[in-house]
């Protein structure tokens, strides 16, 4: 109902709007009068490095297109005004506005304001934005990232997907949603991130240990989900997205409306929402019963941006109800072995939108206040205060006997977790060529388990301080970075079910990072980083004691576990001949001491339901090393050959054996045809994905051998059409074009059913706006 009201508003505001869409590889924006905020016509914008440039039009708008990846200094000048320089690190489309001061006001001071450009990471980073991000619309966050080299997904059936960075997932990676660490029940491998991907304008994946900047848990890496900045120009605009998928007969609608009031109080605002509904999904041969999904997401933001001061309020709410494949529900190991043996589920399933048991219902709320002040003399001070509330309810198919009728609708497992954070960061004024950040942050968290004694109640307090410095001289090819962080965590564990535990834990850690970027003239960039990260054991690892239904295993925690500590070394070489070839190669070597894993025990756990293999949480020293590769080669101007490779080896050094659940080697080869040379050219792309069989698995710890290798083909096409100057961006995609029947090792339901069959999707994006 609420969403319906929201869409009503969207439609009611439609006629007032205007188009301001940008494609990748271009820099665009508007030149404004710093005093009045009004657009300033005919300013000259030039790139220092290449001398390419543009002249703003009568409305102050400019665009410099056909730019290659790199770092540029943009200079904006106009007769009778001061000039302004922006340092731009171009990896995707960039919008940057200039504010020029009429000369009569600034006779004394000629200010050169550097834009708040985030320093380029010395770690391997993948970014997805613009048309690439658009082509993943309608998919969940994990699935929209899985094409990036080094990124895979750990899934639980067809409805739950968690991103995995270089073999690590869940509590070993961090997700920052609009700058806030996502805090839900991310420890569970069937607990997907509670984020609406439509919120993002850009998603970046920082690969490797990154605790210094982002805090504890960032052992495998960080995913940054970044919404677009609030508009700084007077006016209103927005977009409507519609996506349909044949598999599951899924429909997604997402809308966004934003504007800026302009004038003396340039208050900006945005409202955004997404609706998703899908039914039972289909493999090449049969339907999967109870795999529907419903999602209702909503967010708003209000912000004010002045020259030296900015403040923003942001709220988002994510609600989902998702079915878990009925055929995966088993009672004991015999049932699991029966399921593996029969290869095809005993029931074929039918199409339905109904979501029965087992199911999950999750709601996640995020409230954020942020404010920054540019003092001029000492630098920039930023404050961020957040509150998150996550409510997870899981409805087991294995409902209790003798339930009273009114209890049948009650969940079997229910968690509530509330997290408050406060972050204060000081970006000091550059001291010669040194730029740096010093910050402190606090986190307070309360978790209650209302139903099901899976994990105990706990309170968690964190305090940390960090300091990062970056040295960069404008002409020097070398850029250096170093940082240090101290974290303290106090964990108070309350009770589990009827038992009172009352145990306090204190963990602390010092993390460090050093990195460098070296730019060889024109052709090659090298990035090198050595970083540490840590992770305190989660209460699920300390206190688990029970049968895990999805995997038919008995899991037992250990209250004496120590924090994991990782040392990650990575080297990235980027090559770009600026004509027809670019490539990116990352090599990494990640050593994790006290790596927590489930160690199989010799004697099974006997229960009234029969025997379950027993696993205890234990620690060992682990090593993950691998290679991520991506390259694009223009064979002829219209044809591009694309290649992405992810290789990974995980090893338990203590027991000298392979690590479980590591992604197998993946090779993706694509051929893209562009109809013309322009940036928004219509295109067709055919991608072939070869996933090898995972042959490196620990012996005698799994019921079934990893599935065989498989090859998938995906076909995509995209184009922008204009109707009375109104753009319509249309995309057509066919996933699993040949309807290949296969199973994937990293799907925890690989014992029960095949992966999805062919899925055709059609998407439409309509940006709109008024001047």
């Amino acid at each position, binding site marked *: 109902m609420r969403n319906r009201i929201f869409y009503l508003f969207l439609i009611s505001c439609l006629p007032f709007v205007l188009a301001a869409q940008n494609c990748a590889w271009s820099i665009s924006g508007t030149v404004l009068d710093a005093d009045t905020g009004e657009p300033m016509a005919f300013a000259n914008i030039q790139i220092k490095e290449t001398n390419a440039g543009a002249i703003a039009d009568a409305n102050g708008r400019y665009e410099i297109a056909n730019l290659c990846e790199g770092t540029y200094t943009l200079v904006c000048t106009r007769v009778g005004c001061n000039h302004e320089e922006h340092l731009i690190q171009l990896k995707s489309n960039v919008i940057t506005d200039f504010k020029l001061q009429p000369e009569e006001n600034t006779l004394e001071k000629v200010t050169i304001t550097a834009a708040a450009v985030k320093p380029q990471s010395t770690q391997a980073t993948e970014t997805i934005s613009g048309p690439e991000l658009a082509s993943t619309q309608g998919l969940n966050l994990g699935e929209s990232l899985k094409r990036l080299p080094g990124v895979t997904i750990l899934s639980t059936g067809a409805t739950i997907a968690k991103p995995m960075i270089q073999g690590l997932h869940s509590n070993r990676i961090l997700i920052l949603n609009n700058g806030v660490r996502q805090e839900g029940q991310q420890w569970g491998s069937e607990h997907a991130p509670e984020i609406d991907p439509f919120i993002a304008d850009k998603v970046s994946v920082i690969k490797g240990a990154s605790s210094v900047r982002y805090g504890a848990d960032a052992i495998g890496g960080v995913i940054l989900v970044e919404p677009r900045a609030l508009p700084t120009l007077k006016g*209103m605009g927005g977009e409507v997205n519609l996506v349909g998928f044949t598999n599951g007969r899924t429909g997604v609608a997402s809308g966004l409306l934003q504007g800026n009031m302009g004038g003396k109080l340039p208050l900006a*605002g945005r*409202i955004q929402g997404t609706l998703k509904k899908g039914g039972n999904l289909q493999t090449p041969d049969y339907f999967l019963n109870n795999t529907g999904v419903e999602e209702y997401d909503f967010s*708003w933001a209000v912000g004010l941006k002045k020259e030296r001061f900015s403040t923003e309020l942001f709220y988002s709410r994510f609600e989902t109800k998702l079915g878990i494949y009925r055929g995966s529900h088993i009672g004991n190991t*015999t049932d699991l072995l029966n399921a593996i043996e029969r290869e095809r589920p005993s029931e074929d399933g039918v199409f339905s939108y109904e979501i029965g048991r087992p199911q999950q219902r999750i709601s996640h709320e995020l409230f954020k206040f942020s404010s920054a002040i540019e003092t001029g003399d000492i630098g920039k001070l930023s404050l961020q205060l957040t509150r998150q509330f996550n409510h997870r309810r899981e409805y087991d198919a294995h409902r209790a006997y*003798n339930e009273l009728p009114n209890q049948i609708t009650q969940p079997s497992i229910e968690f509530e977790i509330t997290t408050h954070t406060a972050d204060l960061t000081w970006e000091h004024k550059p001291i010669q060529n040194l730029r740096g950040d010093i910050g402190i942050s606090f986190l307070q968290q309360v978790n209650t388990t209302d139903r099901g004694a899976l994990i105990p109640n706990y309170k968690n307090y964190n305090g940390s301080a960090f300091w990062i410095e970056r040295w960069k001289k404008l002409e020097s090819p070398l850029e250096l970075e170093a940082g240090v962080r101290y974290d303290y965590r106090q964990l108070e564990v309350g009770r589990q079910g009827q038992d009172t535990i009352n145990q306090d834990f204190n963990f602390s850690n010092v993390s460090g990072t050093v990195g460098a970027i070296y730019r060889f003239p024109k052709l090659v960039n090298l990035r090198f980083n050595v970083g540490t990260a840590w992770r305190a054991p989660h209460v699920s690892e300390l206190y688990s004691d029970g049968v895990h239904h999805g995997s038919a295993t008995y899991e037992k925690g250990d209250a004496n576990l120590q924090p994991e500590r990782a040392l990650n070394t990575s080297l990235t070489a980027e090559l770009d001949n600026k004509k027809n070839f670019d490539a990116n190669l990352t090599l990494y070597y990640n050593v994790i001491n006290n790596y927590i894993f489930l160690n199989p025990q010799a004697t099974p756990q006997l229960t*009234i339901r029969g025997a379950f293999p027993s696993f205890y949480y234990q620690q060992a020293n682990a090593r993950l090393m691998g290679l991520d590769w991506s390259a694009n080669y223009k064979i002829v101007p219209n044809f591009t050959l694309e290649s992405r490779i992810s290789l990974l080896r995980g090893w338990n050094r203590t027991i000298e054996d392979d690590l479980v659940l590591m992604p197998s080697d993946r090779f993706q080869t694509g051929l893209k045809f562009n109809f013309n040379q322009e940036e928004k050219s219509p295109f067709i792309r055919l991608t072939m994905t070869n996933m090898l069989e995972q042959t490196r698995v620990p012996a005698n710890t799994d019921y079934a051998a990893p599935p065989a290798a498989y090859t998938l083909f995906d076909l995509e096409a995209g184009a922008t059409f204009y109707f009375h100057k109104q753009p319509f961006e249309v995309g057509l995609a066919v996933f699993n074009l040949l309807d290949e029947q296969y199973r994937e090792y990293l799907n925890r339901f690989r014992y029960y059913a095949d992966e999805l069959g062919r899925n055709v999707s059609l998407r439409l994006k309509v940006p709109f706006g*008024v001047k």
Partner: protein
Amino acid sequence: MQLKHIKLRRLCFAIILGSAIFLTTGCDNDNDNEPDNEQELITTVKLTFTPTAGIPITATAKDLDGDGGNAPTIQPVNLKANTDYTLAIEFSNESKSPAENITEEVKTESDEHLVCLVTTGASLPVPTIQDKDGNNQNLGLTSTFKTGVAGAGTLKVTLKHMPNKTGATPCSTGETDVEQTFNVTIAN
């Protein structure tokens, strides 16, 4: 015209802001911190072997502390050779006080349940199920068999939920709620 547009835009803006704040209010946050632990549903399986003449013999398998902790304790079954027996199976949850009778629940939802019986040993034949569900398919709470000569064997009792009873192998479908194996001795 220009002025009208600005007014409309302001109005629209106010509507958006207003609705945003309205839609943001409150998540129903019920903070009852009393965990409700429906952990073990069935703790006890009781077998009653009634001979055509004489005293019934009982044996139980119990796991009162749930999945972890201690393993279930299973009593041995001692039967007489060459005797006709009626086997009655009961399920209960003895972790609650008073104990819950789950046999009644199985009977009420007889269509969704099946007790599977598997034996080993030459003198222990597979019991013949006597009771039927609402669709006239086997249920398995009551069965009969005749023991052979003296010897030893095992009897595995499995309670299945949602099996495919009309399929070829109903006992390999559905999910297992109980699976216990009793040692059986048959003496003269």
